[in-house]
């Protein structure tokens, strides 16, 4: 069985996603890193479904549907921000602060 390597790849992908969200400035790239984390989780679901039953595979379908909706809304927001500010660099988008 390939459970251990699959989980390892999933962990690497998730860490890459977190690192990207933390370190990158571009909103599009951060958005892609979020997708990466979601897919890392999907991989974990699928890998563990072999042992724990079909529910994990079902959840993957849900996650993909939510991710698609999130992508649509998220990209629309980024587009709107770009129209206003002519940048998607999150360091410059800091109006909401104490």
């Amino acid at each position, binding site marked *: 069985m390939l459970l251990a390597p699959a989980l390892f790849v999933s962990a690497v992908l998730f860490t890459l996603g*977190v690192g990207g*969200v*933390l370190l990158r*400035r571009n909103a599009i790239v951060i958005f892609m890193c979020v997708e990466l984390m979601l897919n890392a989780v999907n991989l974990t679901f699928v890998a563990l479904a072999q042992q724990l039953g079909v529910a994990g595979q079902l959840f993957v379908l849900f996650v993909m549907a939510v991710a698609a909706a999130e992508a649509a809304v998220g990209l629309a927001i980024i587009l709107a921000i770009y129209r206003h500010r002519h940048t998607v660099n*999150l*360091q410059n*988008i*800091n*109006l*909401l*602060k*104490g």
Partner: protein
Amino acid sequence: MPPPGFRLDLLWAVPALPLLGFVGNGMLALTRPKAKTAVSIIGVGVLVLSFAAAVAAVAGFVRLHPAAPLVFRYWEWMPVGDLRVDYALELDYLSAVMILVVTGVSALIHVFSVGYMGEDPGYARYFAYLNLFVFFMLTLVLGSSFPVMFVGWEGVGLCSYLLIGFWFNEKINADAGLKAFVVNRIGDFGFLVAMFLIFRHTGSLDFDAVFAQAPTAFTAGDAAITATTLLLLLGCTGKSAQIPLYTWLPDAMQGPTPVSALIHAATMVTAGVYLVARCNVLFALSPLSSATVAGVGALTALFAATIALKQWDIKRVLAYSTISQLGYMFLGVGTGAYAAGLFHLVTHAFFKALLFLGSGSVIHAMHHAYHATHSHEDAQDLRNMGGLRHHLPWTAGLMWIATLAIAGIPPFSGFFSKDEILGAAFARGTAEPIWLAYWVMGIAAALLTAFYMTRLMLYAFHGPNRTGEAERAHLHEAPWSMTGPLAVLGLLSFAGGVINVPALFGGHAFLHRWLAPVTAVADQMHPEVALPAGVEWTLVAAAVLVAGLGIFGAVRLLRLEAPVPARVAPPERGFARVLWKKWYVDEVYDAIIVRPIQWLSREVLWKTIDARLVDGVMVNGSAATVRVFGWVGSRLQTGQVGSYVLLFVGGVLLVLWAALR
């Protein structure tokens, strides 16, 4: 409830009518202060009707002649747990005397006020307050329980404050009102605590229940009853201006003169005497308290009389005289001679009201004379008077009657009442020597009383006139509305003694027997000591001799040419200065009580506790703490999404670490 047909159901009207007058005059004062005729009709009318109602009620009471007090319950006032206090009025032999005196003297003084206050812009307000005072005074004497009495007790204090500071535009008057109010609070504290103690020991506050249970609820002479009665006495010393709380009464003379006559001579200040007489069962249970009451009275009688010797303000002389005479009443009720104390209360109400109204008549004339010449001399200073008998013959003659009455010259009313008090003190002294000392003090005070009253009369009405050449032509006798009440009071001062002529002079001691049911229990505990007739005659002779000596001494010693007008008078010297300065009691109180309290209030309570602790630490401190937390929290809100994520991830890692540990 009493059987119908005795007019006793009119009792509620006795206090209600003055209250109605207060409401009517109060509304006029607010809407039409110039409607003086209407104010006079309402103000005097309700008092006359109230007096008539009181007479009718007492007449019904006499015909019924009940053994127990008649209690009229009107509504439930304070039902709290075991305590039930009704708003109820009580008519018994004691309150019957009081309502007649209060409504009668009040009615006369209201009539006098019509003339005296006629030109005052606050006329309606004055009558509103005066009516309200009578209402509270009647509540005080008619209340059938301690709380109802306390309502009247506080109410008369309020009216006293309002009327002392009636001309509040001048700071000295407002201050005098405040002083009276604050000093009375000290006494009221004693009254309140005594009330709590009474409830704790007897479980009731109704007079009937308390006095019926007192002999069993308290052990005679133990600490509880002594503390209760001494606290009651503290309340009495405040209201009735006895040592140590008497200092407010002389200052209270800043009010209009009829107010001084009504509140600060005839009625309110006698409330303490009434309270002791009402609580005679309690005081009889505590020999120590009775001795203290008598001692305070005797000491005050002598002490205030010495001060009166050297006062120049005509009303201040009378104020100290009032304190002194109230001392006699306390000596009487403390001795157990409740009837004698009440007798002196009644006769004093007559002759002291006459003296005050007479002085009001004098001040009225002096004031008008100075007003006519635009002079700013003191219209109340004896040194500015002299020879007034030529200008105010009625006032002079009537005031001489009152002077002879207060000095104790037979057959004037004061002679009988004062003699009975001194006789009772002497009789008790045969068993307990301390009362002999009280008797000596009383006799000495009687000597001084005769002296200072004669001094007042001589300086005001005899000798050369010192008012001024231009003013002399403007001195006139007051209108009939002022001299009329004086004449009635003069008659009462002369003949008031007939209500209690003792058996020694062939009388029937009417008041004594009238009050016997009220003081029956106390009399049983301390039976009256009967003196042999020879001793009594000697005492009477001594008292008359002393009074005569006082008058004779004043006539011989005082040189009527000596005083010079107040404006140019030299300050007093030596011992006279000590008396003139009232033994420096006000200064001593100021130094040891008023100033420390002011210092404590300003430096500790205000600047430290209020400004620093409450405002600084608690109010502003909590605001500052919140602001610090808010500042720290706002630093976290950088607007950088990355930093939020970092914190979020850090938090998740922390939770994971904690969960997997």
